[in-house]
């Protein structure tokens, strides 16, 4: 960013300039450009997919069964003669909605816990720290499988269980980041003004650990997409004939040898989306030099 740009940004209001600066920095890196490009294509699929789909996503016999790509069916058909391209377009939203809600919930709850624990310190922080250690020692997939075995695999249950599993992970990262800035002058100034803890962490601390929060959010979202798609793939969660990408992979896997494209298309789509968000997270990391080692673990 040049000097002129920096001063221009400083003159404008604070929030938008940060976002503009971040976006230009991410797009400035090649990996960021690739990531943003794929995410934009994906967003088009999420919002306009149902309108763009040439066939009904659950229409059996839209074409002959298990035929490769043609002009009528761009990605061929699956074992029931359903159009793979249409299913891919309509199913895009189901890939991201559940993980997005779960991640956001984990950030609201875990983020507030982490911010307060890191800012307040003392006995509250000790109790929170110990509790986080215990919760983090439980393998995520095991916890979610136990919850599903007990309460079934309705979407609400999956959102709730993934959010619960990710809450302590988010709390730990934000707690560490908060500890790093808790004794800065602007925090002390706010304390001197007599502000309370929650306004201080939200208005003084949170904006200043923004890059860490964004990287953690992107990485968590990637892992949540992986997690939920995996559950769908395992047959836990959405049920056929719903055109979900994870379900599509597991359904057409039996015809992998005859008609690989029906399995490959959703597989590559899942991979592309999660890799794209990972690339964006990496680009933010490179731009701001954020510590992200702790977040790398699923």
């Amino acid at each position: 960013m040049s000097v002129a740009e920096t001063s221009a940004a400083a003159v404008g209001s604070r929030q938008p300039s940060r976002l503009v600066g971040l976006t230009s920095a991410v797009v400035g890196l090649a990996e960021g450009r690739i990531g943003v490009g794929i995410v934009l294509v994906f967003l088009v699929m999420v919002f306009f997919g149902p309108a763009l789909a040439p066939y009904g996503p659950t229409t059996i016999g839209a074409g002959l069964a298990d035929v490769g790509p043609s002009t009528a069916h761009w990605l061929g058909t699956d074992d029931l003669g359903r159009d793979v391209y249409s299913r891919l377009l309509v199913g895009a939203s189901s890939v991201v909605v559940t993980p997005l809600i779960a991640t956001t919930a984990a950030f609201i709850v875990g983020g507030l816990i982490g911010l307060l624990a890191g800012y307040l310190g003392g006995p509250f922080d000790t109790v929170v720290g110990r509790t986080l250690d215990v919760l983090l020692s439980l393998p995520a997939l095991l916890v979610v499988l136990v919850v599903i075995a007990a309460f079934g695999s309705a979407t609400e249950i999956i959102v709730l269980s993934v959010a619960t599993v990710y809450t302590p992970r988010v709390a730990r990262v934000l707690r560490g980041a908060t500890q790093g800035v808790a004794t800065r002058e602007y925090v002390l100034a706010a304390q001197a003004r007599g502000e309370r803890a929650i306004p201080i962490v939200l208005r003084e601390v949170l904006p200043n650990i923004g890059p860490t929060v964004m990287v953690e959010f992107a990485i968590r979202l990637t892992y949540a997409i992986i997690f939920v798609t995996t559950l769908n793939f395992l047959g836990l969660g959405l049920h056929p004939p719903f055109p979900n990408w994870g379900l599509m992979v597991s359904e057409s896997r039996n015809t992998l040898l005859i008609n690989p494209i029906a399995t490959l298309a959703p597989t590559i789509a899942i991979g592309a989306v999660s890799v794209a968000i990972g690339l964006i997270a990496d680009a933010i990391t490179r731009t701001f030099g954020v510590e992200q080692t702790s977040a790398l673990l699923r």
Partner: protein
Amino acid sequence: MVRFVMARLGWAVVTIALISGVTFFATNVVPSDPAKVALGKFATPEQVAAYRLQQGLDRPVAERYVEWVGHLAEGNWGTSVLSNIKVTQLVQPRLGRTLILGFGAMLIAVPLAFLVGVYAAQRTGKPSDVGLSLTALFVNSLPEFVVALGLLMLLGVKIPILPIESSGAAFGSDLQVPLAYVLPMLTLALVLTPYMARMVRANVRDISSHPFVRSAVLRGLQPTRIMWRHIVPNASLPVVNVIALSTAELVGGVVITESVFGFPGLGQLLVNSVSDKDIPVVQAIVLLIGAGYVLMNLLADVAVLALNPRLRT
């Protein structure tokens, strides 16, 4: 040192108790009434009441939990609701296979991570280093089942040298049994390597800047010797912790990989039992896998202690 080990041991016991508690209470509190699960949708209220009495489900949950733990300790792991086979009988042959799979994957992943990490550290900033780090990012962002299907397409379909399905691990001939392990093991190793390699690279770079490395260079030692005798042993200490952390990923990876390949291990049985709501089997497997995971972490802690004299006070 004894105090430290005792503390870690206490920690492990607490974690296992927590896993068993969470598992038991989650699967015994409403809405999933074990009686209704066992008897199915069409059970009459009388049948449900009789089953509850027979299985002792009318007693308080806490009391049943204590009894359940007692039975576990005696080796009575209950009976599968679905097949009426003893859980121990179901689990035992699968446990061995899953252990081989998990340890085998670690045996591939750890040396691979060291090789890749050291190679990348030696070429910091060069195209090969950037390429490796992007590859690591790429693999790390893929779901396990995508990696599994990719390997399957490559080594099972394009170059058909390996079986695309692993049930041979249980029923195959002498040759089919080991072959059935290869693809799941490779998948797990590939999923585990990127994070470890990244940590090896970071630690090797960190250690390389220490004065003792410069003095070794100035003494004219061979670069290979400096790397593997001076730098890597010092860099591997933090990696032990990383390996322990990776077992969490291994736990999840085993469950998914086994399901993809139809590998007859604990993970596959767990997923099937979760779908079928076969609660006694779910409880047993979650406890077993959880205990294995805790044990691995404990071993890593003790290994760090044994490798680092400074901590032995």
